[in-house]
């Protein structure tokens, strides 16, 4: 596990600049939503901010995870790492861990900005932290699914497929059916999109736990596929 943590930390280090830019983006959009000098912020603006950033964080996680293997193979740095006592499964786990750590940090900044906005809009901030936890779970499953696709597809195709997998069921309204809870990420997406600061909004915690379990299964599938890939073959 130490090796996994080391690769994950290295992954974070390698992506520090895009992450810092995204942190700046969250803060700047919060400032924009906060109205720059307006006395009071409108509740709908805060809801829009929360929903928009929540979705962005999940997309960002998917994008980052989908690109990771491709970048490492393209730069050929993966060769030295995998010439050590690291299995392919551990390597993928490290990528997920790195991506999720970033997503969690990103989500925490988003939570703090959200708290500032809710205070300015005189809204209760308690529910916001439930959204933060949902987004963390959503990021984990989005990153893992994207990484799974990227083990055998181009990273852009992998990201597109991941987004399609999460969004298509929502667009076709399958969420009305009870079985839709088993679709990866869908119940989280539905909860976030229905978030409104009203007391009747409730969180489906089972969906969050399920997302983590599904992520573990997808990681195992990804490891099985990645085990069979020729990683030294140049990527285009």
């Amino acid at each position, binding site marked *: 596990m*130490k*090796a996994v943590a*080391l*690769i994950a930390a*290295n992954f974070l*280090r*390698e992506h520090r600049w895009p992450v810092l830019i995204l942190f700046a983006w969250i803060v700047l959009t919060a400032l924009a939503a906060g109205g720059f000098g307006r006395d009071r912020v409108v509740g709908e603006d805060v809801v829009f901010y929360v929903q928009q950033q929540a979705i962005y964080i999940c997309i960002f996680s998917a994008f980052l995870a989908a690109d990771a293997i491709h970048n490492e193979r393209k*730069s*050929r*740095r993966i*060769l*030295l*790492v*995998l*010439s*050590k*006592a*690291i*299995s392919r499964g*551990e390597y993928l786990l490290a990528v997920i861990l790195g991506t999720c750590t970033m997503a969690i940090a990103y989500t925490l900044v988003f939570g703090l900005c959200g708290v500032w906005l809710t205070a300015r809009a005189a809204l209760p901030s308690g529910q916001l932290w439930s959204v933060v936890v949902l987004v963390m779970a959503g990021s984990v499953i989005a990153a893992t699914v994207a990484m799974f696709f990227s083990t055998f597809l181009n990273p852009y195709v992998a990201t597109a497929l991941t987004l399609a997998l999460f969004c298509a069921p929502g667009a076709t309204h399958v969420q009305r059916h009870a079985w839709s809870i088993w679709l990866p990420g869908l119940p989280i997406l539905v909860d976030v999109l229905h978030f409104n600061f009203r007391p009747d909004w409730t969180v489906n915690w089972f969906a969050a736990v399920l997302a983590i379990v599904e992520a573990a299964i997808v990681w195992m599938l990804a490891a099985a596929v990645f085990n*069979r890939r*020729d*990683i*030294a*073959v140049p990527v285009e």
Partner: protein
Amino acid sequence: MPGVLDYDNVTKDYGGAWSKRRVRALDSFSLSLERGEIFGFLGPNGAGKTTAIHLALGFMRPSAGEGRLLGRAFGDAGTRARVGFLAENVALYHRPANKLLRFYGALNGMRPERLRLRSREVLRQVDLATEADRNVAKFSRGMQQRVGLAQALMNDPELLILDEPTSALDPLARVAMRELLLEANRAGKTIFLSSHLLSEIEMICHRVAILDKGRLVKVGKTDELLVSRDRFEVVARGVPEGSFEHSQTQDGRTEFVVPAVSQRDALERVWSLGGEVLSVNPVRRTLEQVFVELTNKGDDV
């Protein structure tokens, strides 16, 4: 007894089973490395050398056949902790040299105290001790290559697999690298060395394999490979000048080369001319001559 590195009838094809661009990189390749030897792996570009190395490290799977690295099937992660690998055109993370070495060492399960000791030691071995805190991104290509070698040595491996380790080095650094490899070998490490620098292979390798178009065309002890069995050099005394074709005479000594089949006739002629045979030795060729001859002919073993 299994070797340190064994390939057993390994074939590797690139491209899918139905692909029109299917390329056979290795064809029924068999080879066994013995413990404690320096083994030179030669072949023209595209011969399959790097493919063979990547298969051993589990970066790819053979299309057919199998192999063992330190007695375990290719791809076993735990076994790689006992191997040091330097890739061709080494690509490193942009971090200070000492931190980078500790990172790679830790991936092999080395403990912090040993990491500190070994990183200092190997940086000194590759003559980069004074650059330990500098980011490798600011290093020259040759320095990066030396950091690459240092990370391969970090875990004090039993087997060193080096893919073109001297390609980016200047002549002085090449000499230092050669010394380092000989020292590592004296310390008991087996070295699998792929290189285009034939003179270097000739100088340090105990055995050599030559690969061409994915097939092993020759394998054997370096000395034996360099000795021709079909031509002999004869040195004689007291033979009139010009008695033999392409002969050279100096201070009464005549030297000439004869094919093995005419060796007896040539010696009898020396005696019939009243001369004395001083020596008869197989012609010694350079590795370059052997290499060119074999890779042009494409002979099988």
